[in-house]
């Protein structure tokens, strides 16, 4: 029988102002950036930065919750590979991110619609649904 690893899976909500120090801490502790994802829920953005330990398979997700108008710093200076994740959040959700090392200017996915998963589109979808019901 193979050895099965049951890793710790931790989700920690942090203050947006602590984002860069926490990311730095994760990097120093040898964690690998596994993914970043955005979700627009209850009129706020939930941004999840997940880190994995390749030896213990431990999985830690740092989460910040921000208003759609809040600007956050890019982490690409600390973790260059975050560039695609941040461009994706910016283009699909309209998350405001400052100083991405390589900013594709909303041309990563080459879509015509602005922030299709962001607040504006969600509100429009809700309106259309209401009108359809009427």
């Amino acid at each position: 029988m193979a050895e099965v690893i049951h890793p710790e899976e931790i989700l920690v909500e942090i203050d947006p102002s602590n984002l860069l120090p926490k990311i730095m801490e994760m990097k120093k502790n040898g964690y690998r950036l596994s993914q970043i994802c955005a979700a627009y829920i209850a009129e706020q953005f939930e941004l999840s930065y997940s880190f994995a330990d390749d030896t213990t398979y431990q999985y830690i997700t740092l989460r910040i919750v921000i208003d759609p108008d809040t600007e956050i710093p890019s982490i690409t200076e600390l973790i260059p590979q975050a560039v695609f994740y941040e461009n994706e959040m910016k283009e699909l959700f309209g998350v405001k991110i400052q100083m991405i090392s390589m900013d594709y200017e909303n041309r990563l996915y080459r879509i015509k619609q602005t922030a299709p998963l962001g607040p504006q589109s969600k509100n429009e979808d809700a309106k259309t649904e209401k009108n359809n019901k009427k």
Partner: protein
Amino acid sequence: MAKRSVIPYGPQHPVLPEPVHLDLVVEDEKVVEAIPSIGFIHRGLESLVDKRDFNQMTYVAERTCGICSFQHGMGYCEAVEHIFGVEIPNRAKFLRTIWAELGRMHSHLLWLGLLADGFGFENLFYQCWRIREKILDLQEMTSGGRLIFSVNKIGGVLKDIPADQLNIILTTLEEVEKEIKTVQKTFLEDYTVQSRLCGVGILTKEQAHDLGCAGPFGRASGINTDMRKLGYAAYPHIDFEPIIHQDGDSYARCSCRIQELFQSIDILRQAISKIPEETDLFTPVKGNPNGEYFMRVEQPRGEAIYYVKANGKPYVERLRIRTPTFANLPGLCEMLKNTDLADVGLLILTIDPCISCTER
């Protein structure tokens, strides 16, 4: 200092199986920098969560990729099953493992063929795809579909594999194993192949870790990680160890995938010998999911992540699929630095890029 120029590479290029564009900054024939751009086939699959309920999204998830479609469906189902807190029947776990490993085999054989085509070895390309055809036949026999199976369901699987078909899989695997050994000799021992792969496109272990490389691409550079060790499906009942290489070059990537083919054959044999006799193929789930989960599975190209967040309604709030190629693109750009322009096509192939699932 040589004059710098920029060469656009792709999205249409004979060596590229899928559309990706690179701006290659070159000095004479040496690549100094590679700037990638994607976005030619973005389909917005994740946005369908507003229009399809959590059961229907299984089929959407499967259509993320034509090569590892089964594993996409399985990853999504496992994430939702975690949220529900349901334990799927043991036989369903083994069936998922069997289909997942068949999928890994056909994906690696497809890649080996493309690699051979990339370095101009047409005959080897045909041989690999001929062997792959037998795996596709097995997939068709067991699921009804050659690539898109649609056998996953929240709580288990929809189809069983009867005993006579399991025996056919075992017999076919014997033939396939012999044939892979034949092509393995050419891939790993032929002088011309070695001269194209050995020492080309080196990515060190530190670079692979810092750039978050996943799957065989990372394991060929010494990253000892394989998500199957997390114990989803029937992997806790299977004896296997991740295949690791230290050289980090194209040869190591090729060797790693060939060894993984033999590993998959071994896993399939173990799974078939241990599959329990049960009639239940799925555990019914009641209500709607409520909660969130990050599910990690090991696809042929590496770690894939399915994030599902649900709020007790039929439509999940968020589905995010992070595919292995998405994680491997930064590694590709780093690896291309200081390589010959003539090797670029081959090096792109060595990460086994799947752009359609990257863009979703």
